[in-house]
């Protein structure tokens, strides 16, 4: 089955093209090609998953061959790929189905599905690629799809600005990726950046080069996966349609950075300074984004910050890879990526269902108590929240627990190798992560209670934002204030099922299937073999209690009417303001980077007009009169005159030649 892997990106691509070309003829059924294309891609990826025995690669064709640079179109199937493909296509199928209901009636219906198909093509290509430069190609393509989908409602100035911001911040990261590739290309003797070739030549590469390249790749990952310092684009990306937020900006694309670092594990193994950096950035991001999420009133932004925070957990997992923990660390990080995809897609689609019913209002202050009106959305959202809060036995618990266990093992391993500084760093990260788990439970249930509990409240039909948002006039929308249609609630229920079981079926302490799969990746057999550890009960209990405390606090403050939140906000005014304004990072970045570049641009503009050009113009003044005279005599013979000049020049040339 694995040799059919190329079908996984190909089917959505064909579907996307068909939709682009003929979609307008299908009208309301324009989603069918893409839903069918992604759905069948999912079936093929299941075949790949079950058919894979050992890593394989397929050279489809040469893509780019310029000078001595060769970029083949080369796919590989190994553990990481076989795990990512079904996950991406499964969630994409459900999201596309959901979108068929959510986007119904939108004037850009066909465009939406066409770009979604293109995205699934790019994303599956990204995880199938067996070559660093090809990965870079798909990496940029998913960014472009994200750009097109964030700016989907292009008349909205905020959406247009968010799309550009997302692309630019990602380009800042991509530059790091590109420079990493340049560097790698110059040190790999045959210039072949296939994964297996690169990982096979590790012995001839020195540590400085590997660390530098690894840090550049991580720089790229912080942009794509919205980590410090380049996370700023993701919250704004919520301007896109909610299914897009679920698919691209929560479940799949934003985790590409985690995938890249996991993929590059063999390249970085043995460099002990890399992992602590990754873990620290992940930890800082996780706690900071959790802090922002505490006070947001926009339901989608709460989820966006929680995505940033959870990806921070994934990096903490991968960043635990010191010494013999490497393999366990990668498995933990990737496992969290895996379970997160289900419950975060579920939560985003749930918020989309709410938005759909509320006439595209997403501010939690303007609605509440929706549990009776939207029972399916409410209960599936609850499942997602429990999973995100990491409470057993839901999926989030198992993966979060593995991340925490990896951190604790990293601390022990560093201690054992006599690296006390690093050991205490890891144990600090461990405690911060446990604290962040509590914060996660708190803000998640804050959102849940605010939306579904308390007295029922709906946005007024004359609400200006509700009326003008996204071309929907909810006054005559049959779904206003009602549970969403079956095509939307079905994906919610399927995802809720997965959010419950995706953890316990695959986790290390139960079956270990996930770890077993990931171990079958290119270059992973060389990794230090993990010592077998028993289930870490202490970590499990600590993590769970932290989550329960967060849940309990959220219930106390938001589960029933209470003035506690506003009193707290008053008491801790500066803290509240700092969280609400997200530490003013956007403003600081603008002042530090955007404004100076724009100012420099103005300098260049004036310099060009009055500096360079002025200089030249003063020279040009001399023959100007002559030339103006020429221009006045367009009709009578300037061509002849010019030809005469040219002829003279040639005569001169001959003259010189004859006498040399």
């Amino acid at each position: 089955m694995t040799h059919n892997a190329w079908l996984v990106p190909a089917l959505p691509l064909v579907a996307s093209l068909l939709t682009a070309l003929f979609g307008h003829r299908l009208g309301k059924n324009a989603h069918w090609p893409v839903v069918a294309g992604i759905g069948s891609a999912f079936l093929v990826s299941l075949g790949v998953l079950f058919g894979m025995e050992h890593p394989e690669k397929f050279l489809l064709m040469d893509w780019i061959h310029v000078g001595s640079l060769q970029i083949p179109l080369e796919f590989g199937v190994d553990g990481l790929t076989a795990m990512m493909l079904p996950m991406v296509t499964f969630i994409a199928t459900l999201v596309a189905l959901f979108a068929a209901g959510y986007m119904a009636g939108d004037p850009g219906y066909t465009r939406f599905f066409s770009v979604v198909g293109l995205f699934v093509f790019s994303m599956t290509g990204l995880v199938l690629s067996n070559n660093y430069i090809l990965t870079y190609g798909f990496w940029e393509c998913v960014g472009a799809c994200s750009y097109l989908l964030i700016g989907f409602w292009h008349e909205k100035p905020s959406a247009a600005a968010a799309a550009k911001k997302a692309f630019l911040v990602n380009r800042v990261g991509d530059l790091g990726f590109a420079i990493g590739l340049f560097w790698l290309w110059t040190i790999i003797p045959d210039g072949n950046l296939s994964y297996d070739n690169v990982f096979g030549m590790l012995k001839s590469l020195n540590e400085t080069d590997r660390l530098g390249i690894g840090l550049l790749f991580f720089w790229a990952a912080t942009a794509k996966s919205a980590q410090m310092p380049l996370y700023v684009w993701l919250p704004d990306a919520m301007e896109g349609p909610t299914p897009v937020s679920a698919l691209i900006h929560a479940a799949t694309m934003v985790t590409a950075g985690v995938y890249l670092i996991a993929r590059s594990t063999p390249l970085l193994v043995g460099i002990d300074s890399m992992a602590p950096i990754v873990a620290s950035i992940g930890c800082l991001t996780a706690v900071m984004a959790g802090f922002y999420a505490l006070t947001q009133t926009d339901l989608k932004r709460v989820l966006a910050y929680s995505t940033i925070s959870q990806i921070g957990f994934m990096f903490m997992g991968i960043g635990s890879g010191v010494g013999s923990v490497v393999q366990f660390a990668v498995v933990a990080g990737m496992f969290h990526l895996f379970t997160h995809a289900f419950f975060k897609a579920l939560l985003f689609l749930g918020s989309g269902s709410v938005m759909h019913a509320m006439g595209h209002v997403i501010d939690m202050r303007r609605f509440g108590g929706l549990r009776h009106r939207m029972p399916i959305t409410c209960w599936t959202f609850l499942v997602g929240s429990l999973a995100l809060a990491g409470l057993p036995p839901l999926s989030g618990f198992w993966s979060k627990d593995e991340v925490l266990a990896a951190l604790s093992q990293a601390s022990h391993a560093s201690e054992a190798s006599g690296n006390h500084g690093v050991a205490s760093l890891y144990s600090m990260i461990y405690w911060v992560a446990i604290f962040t788990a509590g914060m996660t439970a708190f803000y998640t249930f804050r959102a849940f209670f605010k939306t579904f509990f308390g007295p029922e409240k709906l946005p007024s039909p004359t609400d200006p934002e509700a009326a003008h948002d996204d071309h929907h006039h909810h006054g005559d929308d049959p779904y206003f204030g009602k549970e969403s249609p079956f095509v939307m609630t079905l994906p919610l229920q399927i995802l809720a099922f997965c959010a419950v079981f995706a953890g316990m079926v695959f986790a290390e302490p139960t079956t270990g299937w996930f770890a077993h799969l990931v171990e079958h990746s290119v270059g992973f057999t060389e990794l230090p073999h993990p010592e077998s550890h028993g289930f870490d009960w202490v970590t499990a209990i600590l993590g769970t209690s932290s989550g329960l405390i967060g849940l309990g606090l959220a219930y106390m403050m938001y589960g029933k009417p209470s003035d506690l939140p506003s009193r707290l906000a008053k008491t801790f005014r500066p803290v509240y303001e700092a969280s609400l304004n997200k530490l003013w990072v956007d403003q600081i970045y603008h002042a530090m980077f955007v404004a100076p570049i724009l100012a420099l641009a103005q300098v260049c503009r004036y310099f060009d007009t009055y500096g360079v050009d002025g200089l030249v113009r003063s020279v040009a003044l001399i023959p100007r009169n002559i030339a103006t005279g020429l221009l006045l005599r367009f009709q009578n013979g300037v061509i002849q005159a010019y030809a005469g000049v040219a002829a003279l020049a040639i005569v001169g040339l001959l003259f010189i030649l004859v006498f040399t």
Partner: protein
Amino acid sequence: MPSLLILTILLPLVGAIVLFAGQAKLDRGTARNIALGVVLATLVVGLPLVFQFDQSVSGPQFAFGKAGAWGLPWIGTPDIRLAFGLDGISIGLFVLTNLLMVSAVCASWESIQERVALHYALLLFLHSGLLGLFASLDIVLFYIFFEFTLIPLFFLVGIFGGPDRRRASVTLFIYTVVGGMLTLMGLILLVSLHAQYGPLHKLSFSIPDITEGLRQMRWEPWASESLLGWQTLIFILLFAGFAIKVPLFPFHSWLPLAHVEAPTAGSILLAGVLLKVGGYGIIRFNLGMTPVGAKVLFPLLAILAVTGAIYGALAALAQKDIKRLVAYSSVSHMGIICLGLFALNATGIAGGTIQMINHGLTTGALFACVGVIYERYHTRDMSALGGLWNRMPKLAFFLMVAALGSIALPGLNGFVGEFPILIGMYATSPVAGILAGTSMILGAFYTLWMVQRVLFGPLREPGHGHHVDHEHVGSVEAHSGHGHDDHGHHAEHSIQIDPLGWHEVLGIAPLILFIFVIGLRPGPFVDPINPAVEKIAAGMVDVRSKPLSANAKTPAAKASAKPAAH
């Protein structure tokens, strides 16, 4: 085949003469039909050359004669010959010229209302001149075409341009003529030195023969790696004219002016093809004939190219006039192209060569889109425009693809050139490669900002009130409803904006098609370039004291050199 090549070059010339002679009698419709017929015929007649081209050959093809005596005798003494031929470096530019000429004629279809026959005659003169230039195998012939292309362009800008057209055309003229004179001096020196010290001691004007002869020349001062050496001196002279054509910072100030004033057709050709004459000259003469000069001057060249790439991008970022923005983007992109050429290895030079074609396609399409907008709104001020996506979905698609192609999105054409350029430069000078890499960010910044201001946001059109005119609402909606994007704006649909006409689609769509095709399947476009560039890069390796990446072995050499240094 050799006669077909000459026929291709002559065809537009015949058309030009007919139109020029018949100026008084031809009406607008006839003149433009003749022009379109001629450019299409030239495109078709030139096609067999593409399919017959042998990609494994690095020397000229489709030429009369053979090495030592290319072409047909023209002026007996000295032996200046009528030699035409194409190799991997020129064939792409040759075909690009034919393609962009169709776009140029289409862009003039409605916008040129007066002295129409003269306009098309000038376009066709330019067409013939450019084809001849790229196909010339003789230095004198090359130089004649090099200077000749200026004449029609001068009049295109000077007669059919905007309000400040005189200053623009005069600036263009002076810059190019001054640069051209210095280049001529350089060429004369090359010919005479080759005649005197070359292996055959024979006066020759043939470009391939001189290139080969200079490479084999055993004359001690020729190989001097000094700042005052012969090759350095000649490099500078040749470079003067070509750097102005490119234009490389700081010789670019004629370009924004010329673009803003030029009619759309002029801009398409100027950015699409004429700038490439500079790049072509640098490859053919500077790199091919004076490689030591390139090596000696490398730091200066790299600094100029990097500065140009960043400076052009920054200046583009500050523009409000969309055409000026695209013009400055050309300065930036041409800086990147030069960077590839100056990387002095096969990857960079081949990347720069294919990027010249890519840039011709994307910038040609961008200028054509700007022309479409200008023709309807008579403004290029982006602050007066907005939300045109709903108005003209086809234009939005074209502009978006051209923009994404221009910012080197993988899968579109720009990536095929930009990535090799940067990686090639990085192999030679990591600092220059990284600095130039920042233009990836700045390029995306100004390009996407332009897209955002023009296409995104609520509909904004200059000079029209917001009153509702029900009669027009229906017709406009019918027009703008080609796609699925008709969002049914209410009050804004008060004026009649024509949808894209067939001629506009014919002018832009082929460029968009090639933006996709080159991006997805670059092989057929790059394969002819590689062997020709290998040959030039081999000349570079000869002159380098320590070989850099002329081929894939180089990184190995570097890597193995490193441990040795420890």
